[in-house]
């Protein structure tokens, strides 16, 4: 369900190209997305889909010699693409908070926890040392860390994985940014901790009305947390829609294959469903045709659009290419046409 809210981020025709040798290859190819307040937008895809690159592009942390970002990322009255560094630095941490995947690696092993959280405050607020310390203790409490004064003085390796991730979240929300990007925030954690972290994120959102971009490959996490979903494959968006649309009426063959490969506790199958083939490499990706076609070779070429574009198959539900109309799984009889809903 779409929640009403102000528009925070408007991404239009975003391309991020990486340099290999002397040429540039798009890792993110023409992405269009919006993020609103109070909304969780999940970006789903495998490794190599470009989802992490997308996150890095939004926060502008690519190495300029190796990467080129074109298009528009509109925030407030600024376009983040091509923004000069000093202004971008003011936005990072203050307007956009980022939560990274591996909390142990994401924290400086030689710096105390308190200092690492306080660092954000140093550069974005005018608080003095005492006030900063107070705020850090507040934050530690807010993210559910017991005994904040003790943890303040500890080092990252002294905390458990879940606690570290909470610290990373504390760093991200320290300046109360309206946009939070969480890149695989639960992948490195145990299942039980995953649930706690997701709850924490939702709670923070309730308190701050921020918009969260959640990057993940885990459909379970998506189902639990997201409001809107964007599915990425080989650098492109292949399907976008509400979480309901994606799970109840998955349309693009990739989305459908992903859902099919999720292990079901109540299924009778002995084997898990596997998608044929492998994800294309950066160079292999650079084609104008339907990039998923190779993974569903039993679907005839004519079913695919020559130069795929996004088609609206429902209110705010878009799918790339026309192959969805003729798609069936290998073990389904050919005559089964996927019935597309209109809403």
């Amino acid at each position, binding site marked *: 369900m779409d929640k009403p809210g102000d528009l925070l981020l408007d991404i239009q025709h975003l391309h991020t190209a990486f340099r290999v040798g002397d040429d540039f290859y798009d890792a993110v190819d023409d992405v269009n997305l919006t993020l609103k307040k109070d909304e969780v937008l999940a970006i789903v895809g495998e490794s190599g889909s470009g989802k992490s690159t997308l996150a890095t592009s939004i926060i502008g942390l690519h190495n300029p010699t190796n990467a080129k970002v074109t298009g528009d990322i509109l925030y407030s009255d600024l376009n983040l693409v091509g923004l000069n560094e000093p202004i971008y630095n003011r936005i990072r941490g203050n307007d956009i908070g980022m939560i990274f995947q591996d909390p142990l690696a*994401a924290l*400086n092993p030689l*710096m105390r926890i308190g200092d690492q959280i306080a*660092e954000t405050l140093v*550069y974005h607020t005018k608080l003095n040392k005492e006030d900063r310390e107070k705020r850090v203790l507040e934050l530690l409490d807010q993210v559910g860390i017991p005994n904040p004064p003790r943890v303040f003085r500890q080092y990252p390796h002294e905390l458990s994985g879940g606690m570290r991730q909470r610290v990373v979240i504390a760093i991200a929300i320290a300046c109360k940014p309206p946009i939070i990007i969480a890149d695989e925030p639960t992948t490195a954690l145990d299942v039980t901790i995953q649930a706690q972290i997701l709850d924490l994120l939702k709670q923070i959102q309730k308190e701050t009305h921020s918009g969260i971009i959640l990057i993940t490959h885990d459909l379970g996490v998506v189902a639990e947390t997201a409001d809107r979903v964007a599915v990425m494959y080989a650098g492109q968006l292949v399907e976008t829609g509400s979480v309901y649309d994606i799970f109840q009426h998955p349309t693009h063959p990739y989305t459908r294959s992903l859902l099919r490969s999720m292990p079901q506790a109540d299924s009778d199958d002995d084997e898990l469903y596997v998608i044929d083939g492998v994800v294309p490499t950066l160079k292999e990706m650079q084609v104008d045709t339907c990039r998923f076609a190779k993974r569903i070779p039993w679907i005839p070429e004519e079913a695919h659009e020559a130069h795929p574009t996004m088609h609206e198959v429902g209110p705010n539900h878009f799918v790339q290419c026309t192959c969805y109309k003729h798609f069936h799984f290998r073990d389904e009889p050919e005559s089964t046409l996927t019935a597309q809903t209109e809403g």
Partner: protein
Amino acid sequence: MWKTIIRRVLIMVPQIIILSLIVFFLAKLMPGDPFTGSGKLSPQMDLNQIQAIKKELGLLDPLPVQYFRWIGNILHGDLGMSYAYKVPVINLIAERAGNTIWLSLFSVLLTYLIAVPLGVLAGRYQGTHIDGGISFYAFAIIAIPGFVFYLLGLWLFGYQLGWFPTTGSISIAADGLLAKFFSRIYHMILPAILSSVISTTGIIQYLRSGIIDNTQEDFTRTARAKGVPERIVFDRHILRNSLLPIAAFMGNTITGLIGGSVFIENVFSYPGMGKLFIDSMNSNDYPIITSLTLLFGLMTLLGNLLSDIIMSIVDPRIRIE
């Protein structure tokens, strides 16, 4: 942190014991009496006489007895007598050890003064000509065998250009405390510079790759994502994390220099432990050799200890809480 340090010191105890055992057995392989250095034994004597004297000197006693007697003597400061110089070994070593230690410390100082800026430059400007030049220098120097480097340096700067003295640790003509001090330094400059140049290579490479690696680390990315200005990211996160392990190198550098004193002191005829060792080898002065080997070994262990202690001070992950 103290627990870690104490633990580390305790580990050294068995190491010292093992070292002493090794030296003891090596000493037993040496002809004559390497423990006390009495000149009573001589190859000219016939076997019976040799046996008798050996018995008198305690050389036929059971090995453990000999070992503990030797250790006991050492702890009392008695290292035996030198064959060649006819003075107590400990006097000789004390004189020379000072020279070696001063030279090594001077070298370490120069090493860090040169290596740290170069390493930081190479790491920060990775891929540029600066980095290329510094890396090339590091590769080249490390490849050349040390003593050739010293020799060519001595020849060029000592003999050909006459900039520095070519032998000794102090000028005989120096009179008065200040003059003596400066004379000592003057004699140390060339060997210290040359040996520090060699030592810099390891630190430069380590620092450089440390900076390069840390630049790519996730925590650096986190710092940037916080909006921390790039210069501070470099100083506070990348540089600091790369420098701290280098501090621990100090112990290893000192160890390396003391071990290498054998070569450098011979090239420069510098009267230190290394030269004493070679001279004793050439004059079959086994008591000195035995004690020196033990001393060198001890200093190696101490150097390692120093490195480990610094490391535990600097890196919180190593500490046992």
